[in-house]
């Protein structure tokens, strides 16, 4: 057993600093050791994340940015790259980029520049994308994220990990292409062309698919908290490209491949793990990995080479001549007489920061002495933490029961109906009543979820009404329970035999063979704690 150590620890597997002891990491390596039977392979993953900036108009034009609008209805002459049009930078996009940079601990560049990246694709009408290659808006920074590892027969372990960022840049999104294979043509919708994107580039600090998915989840949570991106992966407002390579420990990184446009957490995990295994298989059989761009097919769970890979890619970057450098000022450096509507001041943007998910987790872990896993779950659903804090305020309800009800049953109801906390009609008082029943062990544990579901559908019902109607109260009557135990022992010799056998091994008192039949006779409504108590007393005398 690994001793629990405090303070940051360097993991001997991934050589990275961990906040808590990376017990989970031991299993983390399972994936790779499974695939590479003869020798250990290390996988290295770095991500490029494109996050659409939540502004009403585009990065360089005044066209709208709504999702799912009629085709080509949100296109300005600039977005269609008509001659004579010029880019005019959206101040909110700059502010959103800086706010995100601050939330991720990045250093904001006082001066950043725009560049043109050239490539020909029908959804990029200008033939180039305006991006920030040489001098991005911000650089460095890191994201601390919670990683879970579920292990067989054990509850998930949670640990805090950290992934460094290289840079954050502003750039234009492209249009959307619909490929019509039958007619050999592409259909182009430019509604998305020119929407502001933040591109985040990470260091190759991630190890595998689940690790990367945990990172992206945390990033999504941060972006939603500060409101700079809605984070809807299914609508493409948060997209992930992954760079993946494998190598032997002690050797330099292997040749990497890039998997483009992954659009869900599950696919992040699946695509990366598939790619790691594919590369290991190639290398194990003596082949070599080709540096190429691949895409993930969610139906077959495979990555496939992209059809038009350009071997000699040359983006011919050049400074964007139509945009002077972008300056970000602080209170001292604001030029005298500057129009405050037309400049961005760092301190003003900083005021938009809120309590970030990592800070929330740390605060509630300390304030309520709850484990990281619970803290992380509470923080991961918008508004859930507020419900929790309201319920446990001044010790109104038992905290353990509140956590149990919220994290198991309430969250389950939210998922079932695809509700946000704000949309969920269950009244706060009702949740409190349920928590009290759970705390007093007066209610059948398995019925809590069903009851919450009913409360979500018929919020006018009271908890007491449901409990009485469905007879959900636990049987607390000690006499009755004692009677049933004796009944079982007398009428079911098999049970007694099993009990004798189990308890002859000297491993302490074993009750398990008895509990099932007793609960069965009690219609699964017996109070587990009381049954256990009484059974212990009886068996001690009997055996």
């Amino acid at each position, binding site marked *: 057993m690994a001793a629990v150590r405090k303070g940051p620890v360097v993991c001997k597997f991934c050589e990275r600093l961990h906040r808590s002891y990376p017990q989970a990491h031991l299993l983390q390596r399972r994936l790779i050791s499974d695939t590479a039977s003869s020798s250990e392979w290390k996988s290295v993953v770095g991500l490029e994340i494109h996050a659409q900036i939540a*502004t*009403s*108009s585009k990065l360089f*034009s*005044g*066209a*709208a940015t709504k999702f799912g609008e*009629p*085709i*080509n*209805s*949100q*296109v*300005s*002459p*600039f977005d*269609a790259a*008509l001659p004579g049009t010029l880019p*005019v*930078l*959206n*101040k*909110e*996009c*700059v502010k959103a980029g800086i706010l995100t940079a601050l939330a991720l601990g990045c250093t904001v560049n006082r001066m950043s520049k725009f560049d043109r990246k*050239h490539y*020909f*694709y*029908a959804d990029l009408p200008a033939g180039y994308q305006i991006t920030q290659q040489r001098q991005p808006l911000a650089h460095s920074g890191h994201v601390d994220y919670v990683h879970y590892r579920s292990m067989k027969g054990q509850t998930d372990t949670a640990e805090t990990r950290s992934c460094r960022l290289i840079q954050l840049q502003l750039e234009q999104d492209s249009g959307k292409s*619909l*490929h*019509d*294979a039958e007619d*050999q*043509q*592409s*259909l*182009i*919708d*430019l509604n998305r062309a020119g929407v502001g994107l933040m591109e985040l580039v990470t260091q190759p600090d991630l190890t595998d698919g689940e690790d990367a998915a945990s990172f992206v989840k945390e990033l999504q949570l941060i972006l939603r908290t500060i409101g700079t991106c809605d984070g809807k992966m299914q609508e493409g407002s948060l997209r992930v490209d992954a760079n993946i390579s494998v190598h032997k420990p002690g050797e330099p990184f292997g040749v990497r491949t890039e998997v483009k446009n992954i659009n869900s957490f599950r696919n992040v995990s699946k695509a990366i793990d598939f790619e790691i295994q594919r590369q290991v298989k190639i290398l194990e059989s003596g082949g070599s990995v080709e540096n190429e761009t691949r895409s993930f097919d969610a139906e077959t769970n495979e990555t496939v080479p992209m*059809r*038009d890979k*350009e071997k*000699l890619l*040359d983006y*011919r970057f050049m*400074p*964007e*001549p*139509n*945009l*002077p*450098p972008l*300056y970000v000022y602080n209170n001292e450096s604001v*030029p005298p007489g*500057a129009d405050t*509507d*037309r*400049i*961005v001041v760092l301190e003003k943007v900083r005021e938009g920061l809120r309590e970030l998910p990592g800070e929330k987790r740390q605060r509630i872990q300390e304030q309520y002495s709850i484990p990281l896993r619970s803290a992380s779950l509470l923080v991961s659903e918008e508004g859930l933490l507020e419900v929790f804090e309201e319920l446990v305020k001044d010790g109104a309800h038992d905290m353990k029961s509140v956590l149990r009800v919220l994290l198991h049953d309430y969250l389950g109801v939210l998922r079932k109906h695809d509700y946000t906390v704000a949309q969920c009609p269950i009244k706060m008082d009702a949740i409190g009543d349920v928590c009290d029943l759970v705390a007093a062990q007066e209610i059948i544990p398995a019925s809590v979820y069903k009851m919450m579901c009913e409360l979500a559908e018929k919020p006018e019902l009271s908890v007491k009404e449901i409990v009485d109607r469905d007879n959900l109260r636990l049987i607390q009557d000690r006499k009755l329970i004692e009677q049933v135990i004796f009944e079982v022992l007398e009428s079911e010799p098999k049970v007694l035999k099993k009990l004798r056998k189990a308890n002859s091994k000297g491993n302490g008192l074993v009750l398990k063979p008895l509990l099932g039949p007793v609960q069965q006779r009690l219609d699964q409504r017996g109070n587990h704690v009381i049954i256990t108590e009484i059974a212990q007393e009886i068996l001690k005398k009997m055996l």
Partner: protein
Amino acid sequence: MLRYRLLGQVYGYFSIRQLSSKVPNKPTWTPVDSSKLPQVKEISRELVDHLERLSLVEFSNEEGLKRLNDAIQSANQLYIVNTDGVEPLDTVLEDRSLYLRKDEVTEGNCKEEILSNASITEEDFFVAPPGNIPLKKTDKEYKGKLK
């Protein structure tokens, strides 16, 4: 200084008006000794293929290659300019502050006008050839003569 001198030359050609005190009244230049320039290397067929693909411009004929050759030779003149200690000039606007726009929807909703530029449309989509526009693989007559 160098930057302003080059700028001055440009303005000198096109405008008699004095735009800035830093722009000289008269253009000045020194003739370039072309023998000091690096020789233009022979252009291989692969390079022509590559450049055609990148630029989507077809130029693999005698005239096109001569132009490419001339362009390289012209650009080679830059080798003899001493740029030690000179920061590259990205834009002549680099001392201006970048104008920032309010986040307001002021454009769009002009589908008909936007689509009126397209030669083929389908259900309000622009229609384009599939994927990257592939250059025809068939060898042109002139390409065959290249190495």
